[in-house]
């Protein structure tokens, strides 16, 4: 009997124990659950926070950093703000965000270049057409200048020609900035002509004083002529624009070791160091040009110089301060772009300044010619100055002295080039011997013949006779040569148009 209550008791005890155990476990589990709940709540809060932070970081990127980064491409002084939370920098998120900015920058820059190239192409096409039209207009205006004498009309034509030159310069510079070719092929020309030509393209050309210290005949190879004219015009334009209207702009042409230097000095306001740095960067032409960088209205001059210096191997320096307080711009034309033109055969333009190196031979002739006039009894010119019936006659009669030597030059047929110098040297030999020019170039003219007599002793009679004799000798030689030539021509020697062209030209120069 006892066993049963024992069993019961045992069972109860076991039940109680297990109940206790279970209860404890339950309690434990409940406690754990609440702890976990609290933990997960904390985590969720953290997650929400992180999401919020991430979102606001993205919002910050979109509203602040991206626009700033885009703007900074055009305006380098714009500061791109960092992430909202400074500790993001360097984290994967921070790096990813920076990646977004970088991608934007690259794409924007590429877009910028593409758009600019399209704009340049459009402008190039337009300016090219305008330039061609202006050249046609120039031809028409110069034709009219030759044709009409009326002073009022001629004055207007000169004005129009000048206006046209200025428009032409602008169109040409715009085209060059947009990467076009200079638009005009020129033949080998005197350097001073290129500089004077550039000067003529400006409104204030009267304020420019060109000092020409080059050896006469210093010329530019054909493809460098127009670029040098454009660069000179733009440098002068800058100088004129930034100096007061009552000051002069000085240009000097000088030989340097590696070629020739064109120096432009103005007495203007000068540039700040920032401006000077920018100008120097532009004219160096190392960076590609973007129209959007040129400002509004675009300042094309320096950019055009940059394009040309790069294409034609010229060099321009604007980094020096002029001794007159303004800017000193120096264009260096290297030796390989230089050549020589015989100034007697093809003299520079009449309005191009004289070389100071010409003084010895050339100006000597000019200065001394008038005194010799009366001294040798006014031999060559007397008849012209005489009573009224004389001029028609003497002027008609002068050519035998003047023109006879020219006839063979025209007629010298087969001999072509050789014929002329031979003749000229015969003609000129006496004065050349008499007056030693020290190897300086000199024109082949009759003037030296008169001056050649100058250093000779001054007995009146022989001196008066001398020019006569020289002329007679020349005339006799000329007659002989022309007779030979005529005979040859009659004999069927070919008279090519090329020959006549050449001699025409030669005749014009040597007369």
């Amino acid at each position, binding site marked *: 009997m006892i066993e049963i209550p024992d069993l019961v008791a045992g069972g109860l005890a076991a039940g109680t124990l297990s109940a206790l155990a279970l209860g404890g476990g339950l309690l434990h589990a409940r406690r754990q659950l609440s702890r976990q709940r609290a933990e997960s709540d904390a985590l969720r809060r953290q997650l929400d926070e992180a999401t919020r932070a991430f979102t606001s970081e993205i919002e910050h990127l979109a509203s602040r950093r991206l626009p700033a980064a885009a703007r900074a491409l055009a305006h380098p002084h714009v500061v791109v703000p960092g992430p909202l939370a400074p500790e993001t920098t360097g984290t994967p998120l921070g790096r990813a965000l920076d990646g977004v900015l970088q991608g934007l920058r690259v794409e924007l820059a590429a877009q910028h270049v593409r758009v600019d190239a399209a704009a340049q192409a459009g402008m190039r096409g337009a300016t090219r057409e305008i330039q061609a039209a202006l050249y046609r207009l120039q031809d028409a205006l110069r034709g009219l200048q030759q044709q009409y004498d009326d002073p009022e009309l001629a004055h207007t034509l000169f004005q129009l020609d000048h206006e046209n030159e200025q428009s032409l310069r602008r169109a040409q510079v715009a085209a060059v900035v947009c990467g076009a070719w200079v638009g005009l092929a020129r033949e080998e020309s005197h350097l001073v002509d290129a500089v004077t030509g550039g000067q003529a393209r400006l409104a204030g050309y009267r304020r420019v004083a060109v000092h020409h210290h080059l050896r006469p005949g210093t010329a530019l190879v054909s493809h460098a002529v127009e670029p040098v004219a454009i660069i000179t015009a733009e440098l002068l334009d800058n100088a004129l624009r930034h100096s007061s209207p009552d000051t002069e702009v000085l240009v000097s042409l000088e030989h340097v070791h590696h070629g020739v230097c064109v120096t432009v000095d103005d007495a203007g306001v000068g540039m700040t160091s920032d401006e000077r740095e920018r100008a120097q960067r532009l004219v160096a032409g190392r960076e590609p040009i973007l129209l959007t960088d040129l400002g509004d209205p675009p300042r094309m001059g320096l950019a055009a110089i940059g394009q040309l210096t790069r294409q034609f191997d010229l060099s321009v320096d604007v980094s020096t301060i002029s001794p007159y307080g303004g800017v000193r711009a120096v264009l260096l034309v290297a030796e390989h772009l230089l050549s020589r033109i015989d100034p007697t055969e093809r003299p520079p333009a*009449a309005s191009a300044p004289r070389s100071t190196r010409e003084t010895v031979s050339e100006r000597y002739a000019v200065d001394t010619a008038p005194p010799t006039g009366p001294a040798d009894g006014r031999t060559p010119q007397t008849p012209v100055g005489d009573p009224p019936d004389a001029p028609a006659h003497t002027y008609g009669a002068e050519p035998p002295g003047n023109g006879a030597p020219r006839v063979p030059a025209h007629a010298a047929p087969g001999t072509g080039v050789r014929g002329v110098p031979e003749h000229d040297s015969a003609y000129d030999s006496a004065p050349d011997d008499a007056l030693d020019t020290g190897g300086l170039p000199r024109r082949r003219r009759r003037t030296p013949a008169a001056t050649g007599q100058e250093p000779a002793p001054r007995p009146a009679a022989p001196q008066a006779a001398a020019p006569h004799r020289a002329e007679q000798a020349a005339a006799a030689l000329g007659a002989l040569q022309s007779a030979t030539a005529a005979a040859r021509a009659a004999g069927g020697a070919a008279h090519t148009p090329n020959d006549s062209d050449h001699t025409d030209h030669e005749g014009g120069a040597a007369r």
Partner: protein
Amino acid sequence: MTGRPGGRPLVPAYLATGGAARHPRLRLERLSLLRRSDRAVPDGLPPAHLALLDELAEGALTAVEAAALLRLPFSAVRVLAGELVDQDLLVARAPIPPAERFDPDLLKRVADGLRALKH
């Protein structure tokens, strides 16, 4: 006559005269004869003026010939010559007009007029 066969001239004509094409006093025609005077050339003369004097150093020329040699239009040479004449460096003479027969009508009208005055 502008420039050489090779291409358009680099230096435009208006540069020779500083843009002027009129001269207040001198009436120069294409065939007017230009001759240098005996005055010495002063310093500081503009290059185009010097060039014209150079061309005339060899003797007289008509204005249009000088223009051709200088490769300038005649109107520019007219201004140059005018300025040089003002400085007594140049002498200009009008061209000799071609001989013409007198207009009998005109003579008759002049004679009539004179007769009318006398009465």
